[in-house]
């Protein structure tokens, strides 16, 4: 803790490469980056705890030891704080017994006072202590059982366990979201740095000193920040855990689906983690060009909605009908309509919205497409939210769908059928939506039994953002792919584009058909495939931020 901040220098696309000697072999690595990153570029992983790509370097865990050449010959140095110099010599654990010994020693120290309660720890399976023990420790314990462990935790939480061992600092309630287990903590201070240097609100600190130091909030205060669950990500051990995920699942059971945060136009990269057909958590997925390693609590908790209040069938007014009936009724209504208002949605993918446009095209002049949202737009927070709750607003603009939703209530009398696609108009602004109830047939395609579904004469359940593949364009003009997680609440649910394709007789069999249709209309999408967009997305040519 001090006024000196050492943000890590990470390799960029344009970083100059220089030759250094690693374990006796010359290798090209990016100049000026720290050795952890430089060695990673040539396939050498360096075990570490406190180092994090998106936090200032603290250099306190001492696990990433390598040997480098200095004025006094080869000597131990921490890789995370040693920059690459041209021609430098580096010895890793592959060639230096001294490095092996130093890393083993640090691992032994880390474990000396750790409770080793992996069987009941939520972090087990994704824990740096476990991983680094396998790569850098792997030694029998030398610790005498009767010497025991140093008590770590706040003095007022101290108690004796059944073996007479001093324990404490267990399940300390830090606030609404995070629980702290002080005795598991290895004091890497990542959480402190996250709150101070990323969240910009110093709410955590290390109290006391020596081996009895512990993480704490300031006396009488709680951990409360829109991003405070990120401390559970940066925590390399099981000390900080989120209340939403404690004791829910063993992490090695979880399948991971790489997708995009649907709650904000920042387009934070996330992973939906699921098991047994349920989404159990959302984790940030590092993308240095978008959200770095951070997502807001609201993005992280968005998985809960995936299993709450779902519309897994069709609704005629209040009556539940099988989905296939609802879909064919939808087709009849739009084909038989005098004039149809189709409301596209920035909450849905390009594929879904292009299906709206294609349906309007198929219906000819009797159809009109409206776009936009009535949700209030907030302010950017400078971390991973723009404040705009409509994730694909830019994608709608790209497709040429007008932002004219506000015209619709005044013109409601012109239409006899309204199709609202994934846009909770009644939930966003019930007073504006009230005028739409003049339209006799109101059809809602929605994953949720929301206010719009209830106000509709016909509601059709569809797949949510997490269950269908597609693309979105974030506020910065970056196209990114959402992948489908195997978590359908009902096997009958279909993506929006598929329902609309059936209703309009478009004959699309995959989201690729929809994407190709969009490519034909939008030059910026030309030449792209899901594969070339890749898991990190790519900025669209000619689309400004």
């Amino acid at each position, binding site marked *: 803790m*001090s006024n000196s901040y050492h943000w890590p220098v990470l390799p960029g696309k344009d970083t100059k490469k220089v030759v250094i000697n690693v374990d006796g072999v010359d290798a090209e690595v990016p100049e000026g980056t720290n050795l952890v990153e430089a060695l990673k570029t040539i396939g050498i992983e360096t075990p570490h705890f406190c180092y994090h790509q998106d936090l200032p370097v603290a250099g306190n865990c001492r696990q990433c030891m390598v040997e480098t050449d200095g004025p006094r010959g080869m000597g131990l140095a921490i890789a995370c704080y040693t920059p690459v110099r041209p021609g430098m010599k580096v010895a890793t654990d592959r060639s230096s017994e001294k490095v092996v010994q130093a890393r083993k020693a640090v691992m032994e120290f880390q474990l000396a*006072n750790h409770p080793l309660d992996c069987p009941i720890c939520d972090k087990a399976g994704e824990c740096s202590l476990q991983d680094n023990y396998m790569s850098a420790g792997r030694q*029998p314990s030398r610790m005498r059982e009767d010497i025991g462990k*140093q008590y770590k935790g706040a003095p007022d939480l101290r108690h004796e366990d059944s073996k007479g061992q001093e324990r404490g600092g267990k399940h300390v309630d830090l606030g609404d979201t995070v629980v702290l287990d002080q005795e598991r903590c290895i*004091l890497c201070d990542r959480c402190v740095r996250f709150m101070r240097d990323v969240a910009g609100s110093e709410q955590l600190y290390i109290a006391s000193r*020596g081996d009895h130091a512990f993480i704490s909030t300031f006396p009488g205060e709680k951990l409360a920040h829109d991003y405070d669950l990120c401390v559970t990500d940066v925590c390399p051990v099981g000390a900080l855990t989120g209340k939403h995920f404690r004791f829910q699942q063993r992490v090695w059971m979880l399948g991971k689906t790489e997708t995009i945060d649907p709650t904000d136009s920042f387009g934070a990269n996330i992973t939906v983690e699921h098991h047994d057909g349920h989404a159990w958590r959302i984790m940030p997925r590092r993308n240095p060009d978008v959200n770095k390693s951070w997502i807001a609590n609201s993005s992280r908790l968005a998985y809960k909605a995936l299993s709450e209040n779902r519309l897994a069938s069709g609704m005629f007014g209040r009556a539940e009908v099988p989905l296939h009936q609802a879909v064919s009724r939808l087709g009849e209504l739009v084909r038989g309509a005098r004039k149809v208002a189709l409301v596209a949605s920035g909450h849905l993918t390009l594929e879904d919205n292009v299906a709206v446009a294609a349906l309007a095209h198929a219906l000819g002049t009797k159809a009109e497409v409206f776009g936009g949202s009535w949700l209030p737009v907030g302010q950017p927070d400078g971390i991973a939210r723009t404040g705009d709750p409509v994730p694909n607003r830019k994608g709608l603009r790209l497709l040429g769908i007008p932002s004219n939703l506000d015209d619709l209530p005044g013109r409601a009398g012109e239409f006899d059928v309204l199709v609202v696609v994934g846009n909770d108009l009644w939930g966003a602004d019930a007073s504006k939506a009230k005028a739409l109830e003049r339209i006799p047939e109101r059809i809602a395609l929605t994953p949720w039994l929301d206010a719009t579904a209830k106000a509709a004469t016909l509601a059709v359940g569809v797949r949510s953002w997490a269950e269908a593949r597609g693309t979105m364009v974030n506020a910065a003009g970056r196209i990114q792919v959402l992948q489908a997680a195997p978590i359908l609440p009902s096997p009958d649910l279909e993506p929006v584009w598929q329902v609309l394709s059936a209703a309009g007789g478009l004959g699309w069999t995959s989201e690729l058909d929809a994407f190709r249709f969009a490519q034909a209309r939008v030059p910026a999408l030309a030449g792209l495939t899901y594969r070339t967009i890749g898991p990190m997305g790519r900025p669209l040519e000619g689309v400004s931020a």
Partner: protein
Amino acid sequence: MATLTVTQNFGKGAKDLSVYKSLGGYSSIGSRLFDLSQFELIDLVTSSGLRGRGGAGFPTGMKWSFVPRNSGKPVYLVVNADEGEPGTFKDHFLMLEDPHRLIEGMIVCGWALGVRTAYIYVRGEFLPAIEALNAALKQAYDAGLLGENIAGSGYSLDIYVHRGAGAYICGEETALINSLEGFKGQPRLKPPFPAVSGAWASPTCVNNVETLMALPWILENGPAAYQALGTPKSGGTKVFSVSGDVKRPGVYEIPLGTPLMELLESPDLCQGVIGTLKGVIPGGSSSPVLTAEEAKKANMDYEALASLKTMLGSGAVVAFNETRGAVGMLASLTRFYAHESCGQCTPCREGTGYADRILKTVVAGKGRDGDLEHMLDIADNISYTTICPLAIADAWPIQNFIGKFRSEFDAEVAKNPGHAQARVSSDFRPGAFW
């Protein structure tokens, strides 16, 4: 009587400005100082051979020359008066007896480095010394020796006294700077070194009290005279705090290179050891201990002690006789370092504590074979792997006390009837899983 360069005013009431002036004080604050350019002054200090008296013994002139001149930021001088090394008490007495000499030394250093604001970071427990300093500062300000336009020279310097909150680690210069800034006292990663980016990310010179207090004498008598007091490589005099089993413990200033036994036995100095000398800690608790035989060969200068694989350190000489048990002494030291480890980096945080708990177990009569080896291994593993040298300050006593008084430690372990019992259960078979 040997020449004194730092403690000559002891016992003369020099706390008071008029007394200090009547003893020749502040004579350098005038043309003698201000006629020198910064470079001339730094050269003068370099040629005097003055080295940092806080422990590391880094050449003072060289340290000053590292401070950049055109960084566009203010240069700070911070006086390290956080004297916390067990056995050391010289700075406390220096500030108590002769605070004006420190102020004078700070003005000299300030002029050399272009300092506008200087701080004295005093260990919080030194309340009388702090009061003496504050009183002296007030007198100096009133006499126009501090503040704007010192003695009509056009040079201005402000000095503030900052009380530490009580941590050994705050004697480490970057931890001290952190503490001064209001952060937790934990050492910073280096580089950048304080000379380039220290207090408030500005160039900062951190010097020990005694180092700065030697400056007025050097200015008055010339660098050659100071250099001539010591050995060719260790110039000048050094203030030693002698404690332990000697007849007259206290603060003594002697030329560097004086034999250790002369310090302990001279009738002018400590007047002899009580009982039979068993060993001496020559430079503060972290310096490797010397046995009586080694102590008889030791000269008190940087090079001679380095050749005995120990160090001059802060000049805290602790002599002990045959009634003192090595185990108990080491137990005190490991307890101290475990308590004072700042907890920032892993090897020191966990290693100092674990070594201490092993030794406590041994002292409690529950030692087992292999415990001492484990302690020595911990000492190896915490050395040179941490941000600051506190871990080494713990490792050296462990290695040297156990190494040089091994039979006592073995006897302590053997007091446990079950000492041959295995230290850890044999359940764990490495490789059994994979």
